């Protein structure tokens, strides 16, 4: 049976790519190919940008509340497709179905938040900045924006940006990850039902060539990117060279501190979710567990026991707690890091290398893996593994935790479990990462707060969603007036 070939969505129509360069889309739980994705050409990307540019002026002149009404209809369309989108996501990405539902929910919440454009996009004014002279700062849309999306959150991430850009009066081009293109394709079927004016929202599948074509295209005003740090840095530099706005989010190596006074029983479920949810392929996943003082001897056996209980399997099964990783290549990369940890003399107390799942012998599974006695200098403590591999670094006190956190390049998120207020204050006051969890293992800001890290985890000034993102998608025109 031939596999479905995914189409681009350009100027309000589905279009087969002319590219002969095709990639495979996999079902990570079974190791089967399930679709073919085109690596579209520069010409096709340029067509999408032209469609977006041509649509811009009329869309920009559409009243803000009318633009918001498209988003209300879009929300309804997404709600109607909710379960189907979530199932498509679990199938091609591997994550557990509840995680997919959570991701689709977050996607929709961004659409909901963006409908507040009539209060969130407003400018400001002042009378008499000089005698009889008034001044206004009026936010205006800018033109075409684009998103280059990662594989770990294929539904949600483009929608951290797109609804805000569009509701502000811009037009948009999305490039989904070539590893998980089916989810965004399904989402665009829901978009298509809403009846946006042609060219306002476009999607082009592809790989590196499409990325470079987006960075080179002079008609794209700004780029939002989420992915690895080296690529984030590349995107940031290239956008600087071509004069584009950019918000470029990179990798992470998040530390979770457990203070001696933490309520271990209450903390454990969220710790397991933090480290092993999405098979560790989250930029907010816990990666390093730092028990402080005598907490180490209490938490390590309990944490290991809870990890061993995780049910690993097909993300589509309701009982699955942890699904497969994205690809065979990524599985091998993770296994390589586990080998490195052993070579560097970390103490492997839970080994996920030989993880087998009944009836799914070809799935890309890695079991929960825990290293104890890790030092901050070891490779597994420094590099982003992006898998279900936990490094435990024992700390004598909170100062040592803060020091380890602040000597990493990555500074995405950091979490602390404690019942002590002053420890929390000290932690959040002093650590470099920009998203902080207190008795929360995944410090994920919701759509109405900004999302983004610091240091090597974020390049650019304005983060994803929140109120600030309206600034990214608008430019303030300052009008100074005097009536003679």
């Amino acid at each position, binding site marked *: 049976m031939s596999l479905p070939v995914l189409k681009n969505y350009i100027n309000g129509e589905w279009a087969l790519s002319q590219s002969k360069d095709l990639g495979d889309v996999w079902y990570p739980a079974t190791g089967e190919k399930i679709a073919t994705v085109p690596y579209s050409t520069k010409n096709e990307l340029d067509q999408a940008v032209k469609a977006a540019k041509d649509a811009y002026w009329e869309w920009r002149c559409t009243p803000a509340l009318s633009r918001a009404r498209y988003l209300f209809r879009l929300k309804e369309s997404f*709600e109607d497709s*909710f*379960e189907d989108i979530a199932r498509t996501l679990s199938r091609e990405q591997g994550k*557990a*179905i*509840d*995680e997919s*539902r*959570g*991701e689709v*929910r*977050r996607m929709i919440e961004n659409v909901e938040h963006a409908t507040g454009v009539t209060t969130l996009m407003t400018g400001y004014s002042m009378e008499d900045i000089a005698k009889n002279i008034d001044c206004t700062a009026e936010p205006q849309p800018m033109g075409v924006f684009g998103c280059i999306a990662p594989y770990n959150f294929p539904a949600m991430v483009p929608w951290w940006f797109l609804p805000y850009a569009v509701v502000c009066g811009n037009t948009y081009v999305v490039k989904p990850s070539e590893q998980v293109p089916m989810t965004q394709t399904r989402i665009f079927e829901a978009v298509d039902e809403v009846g946006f004016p042609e060219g306002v929202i476009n999607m082009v599948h592809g790989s590196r060539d499409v990325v470079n074509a987006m960075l080179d295209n002079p008609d794209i005003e700004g780029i939002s990117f989420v992915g690895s740090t080296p690529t984030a840095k590349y995107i940031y530099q290239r956008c600087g060279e071509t004069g584009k706005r950019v918000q470029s989010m990179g990798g992470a190596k998040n530390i979770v501190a457990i203070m001696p006074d933490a309520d271990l029983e209450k903390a454990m*479920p*969220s710790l*397991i*979710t933090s480290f092993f*949810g999405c098979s560790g392929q989250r930029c*907010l996943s816990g990666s390093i567990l730092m028990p402080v003082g005598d907490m180490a001897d209490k938490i390590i056996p309990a944490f290991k026991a809870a990890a061993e*209980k995780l*049910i690993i399997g097909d993300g589509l099964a*309701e*009982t699955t*707690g942890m699904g497969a990783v994205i690809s065979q290549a990524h599985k091998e990369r993770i296994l390589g890091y586990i080998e490195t940890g052993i070579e560097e003399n970390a103490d492997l107390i839970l080994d996920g290398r030989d993880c087998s799942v009944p009836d799914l012998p070809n799935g890309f599974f890695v079991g929960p893996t825990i290293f104890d006695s890790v030092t901050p200098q070891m490779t597994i403590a420094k590099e982003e593994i992006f898998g279900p591999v936990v490094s435990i670094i024992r700390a004598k006190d909170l100062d040592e935790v803060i020091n380890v956190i602040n000597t990493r390049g990555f500074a995405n998120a950091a979490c602390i479990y404690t019942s002590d207020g002053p420890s929390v204050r000290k932690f959040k006051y002093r650590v470099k990462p920009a998203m902080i969890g207190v008795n*929360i293992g*995944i410090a*994920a800001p*919701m759509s109405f707060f900004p999302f983004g890290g610091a240091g090597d985890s974020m390049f650019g000034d304005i983060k994803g969603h929140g109120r600030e993102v309206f600034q990214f998608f608008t430019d303030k025109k300052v009008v100074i007036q005097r009536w003679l």
Partner: protein
Amino acid sequence: MLLNNFGGVLSFALELEDQSRQFYEQIGQNQECSDLMSYMNQFDKDSQKNTKLLKLTRQENVTEMILEAINDFTRAPFLLNINGMSVSDRSTMLSIAKKIEETCESYYRQAAEKMRGLPEVAQSLKTAEKRRTAHRQALNEF
């Protein structure tokens, strides 16, 4: 089979609603049970309301922050085992209906307890339970 997470608990509830609705359709078509027709219509409406509520709850009350495992909860005690069952005898039908209502009521009560950390979810389950309690009480009159 385990009910070890948010989606599993709500998806099983939807299965219960679906199965019981199919059984009540059978009763509704049985000439011997014509006196139960108005009850069956009401049960069907309530079940549709429950289904809508539970689907919305599954869609709207899930975030990464709450994807934490549920312990010591399984499907086994709540399996209805009525799929494809064809019963024509009135008293057997009534006794199965009572069993369905008791099972669903008990499931919703226990599920709400398991979900007490998520008050909105627990509230939806309690609402579904309340409808099932009313059904059970109505059936007890026969």
